[in-house]
């Protein structure tokens, strides 16, 4: 790992001013993605701004009807939070299956969505639940946040401070984990609300996406059987050593049916 200057400000303003105008500065949250990247020298920031000392960035609360999770909240804390387990159990369950316990003790929700790994779990929940991403300067709807592989709507120097989740009537997440890394080879988040059904797919394509055919079929009838005649176009999905695109397309439908079944069982 190349050497760098380490900063640990205690306010959001302090973070923002350290990042401002400094292209070679990087935020570090749990470091579970950034440190391995730096070890491989795929990233070599001159300045590392540790946001773990900023008060108020970690924690779970309700704000009216919205579940608010601070950016620095660790996966393990989301999984074990009484509030999340009661209000949005699908999210607690998703968090409990990210990587392994040691990853969950360091990795954060803000880091996961800012990184936007195409096989990460949280982006599926954020997009499927139509959450809002709160940054130091604005609020970004989930539909605009995930731009492309490892790319988000965040501007240089902008940081995520919290994610606000509206509560669905029914929701569940089913993933087929890569047996080695636990990242999703296909993960499907389904959510039914008063406004309709949203379905977000991770792990299968070059980035998280909404599956409109599945959404339409489930809006018609929210049960796994409604998906019997639906398939997903494999041509835009990923192929790699773990699975080709045809296999991933098949997995997506299997996970979608499973998620609908789980949502109905839980609801």
């Amino acid at each position, binding site marked *: 790992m190349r050497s760098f*200057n380490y900063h640990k400000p205690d306010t959001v303003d302090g973070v923002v001013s350290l990042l401002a105008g400094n292209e070679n500065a990087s935020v570090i949250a749990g470091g579970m993605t950034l*440190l391995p990247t730096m*070890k491989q020298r795929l990233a070599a920031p001159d300045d590392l701004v*540790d946001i773990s000392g900023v008060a108020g960035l970690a924690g779970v609360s309700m704000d009216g009807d919205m579940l608010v999770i601070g950016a620095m909240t660790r996966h393990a804390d989301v999984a074990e939070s009484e509030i999340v387990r009661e209000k949005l159990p699908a999210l607690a369950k998703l968090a409990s299956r990210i*990587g392994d*316990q*040691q*990853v969950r*003790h360091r990795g954060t929700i803000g880091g996961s969505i800012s990184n936007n790994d195409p096989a990460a779990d949280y982006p599926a929940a954020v997009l499927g639940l139509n959450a809002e991403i709160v940054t130091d300067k604005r609020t970004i709807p989930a539909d605009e946040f995930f731009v492309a592989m490892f790319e988000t709507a965040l501007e240089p120097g902008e940081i995520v401070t919290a994610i606000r989740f509206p509560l669905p009537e029914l929701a569940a997440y089913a993933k087929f984990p890569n047996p080695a*890394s636990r990242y999703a080879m296909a993960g499907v988040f389904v959510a039914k609300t008063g406004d309709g059904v949203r379905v977000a797919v991770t792990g299968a394509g070059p980035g998280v996406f909404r599956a409109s055919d599945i959404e339409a079929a489930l809006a018609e009838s929210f049960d796994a059987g409604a998906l019997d005649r639906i398939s997903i176009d494999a041509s835009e999905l990923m192929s790699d050593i773990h699975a080709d695109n045809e296999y991933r397309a098949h997995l997506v439908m299997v996970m979608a049916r499973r998620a609908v079944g789980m949502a109905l069982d839980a609801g």
Partner: protein
Amino acid sequence: MEISFVLNDEPVTVNVDPSTLLSDLVREQLSLTGTHVGCDTSQCGACVVHLNGDSVKSCTLLAVSVDGGDVRTVEGLSTNDKDLHPMQQAFRDNHGLQCGFCTPGMLMSAIDLVKHNPDPSEAEIREWLEGNICRCTGYQNIVKSIIAGAAAMRAAS
């Protein structure tokens, strides 16, 4: 940078470069070589230590980020040279290791599991060990050891 933290119940103050990993600090600078580095890529769990009571991978943790914290390595499990921690004793009694390379990480992970779940089932133990890889034992005796170690920890508390 100067950092201070509690290591195995003793306060320490050391000077580190910000890019130093906790695994390197304890092994190279503090000569506690019980923490092993197997993969150095956050996969194998040989380097697991406790930070403020939580099991974490010390190869993927900057030493500077434990400033002010409480770290325990495998050397800090037993308070004297004679008695092993009940989990260590259980690994010994149940043949829970062969080459021993993964063992420090297995112990630190297992003790954290018992803290969360004092009476884990075999399935829960296997799930929890997701982040710990062993190339020798086939896990069977590790699981057996953890069941025995958990029982001993319950009896001791």
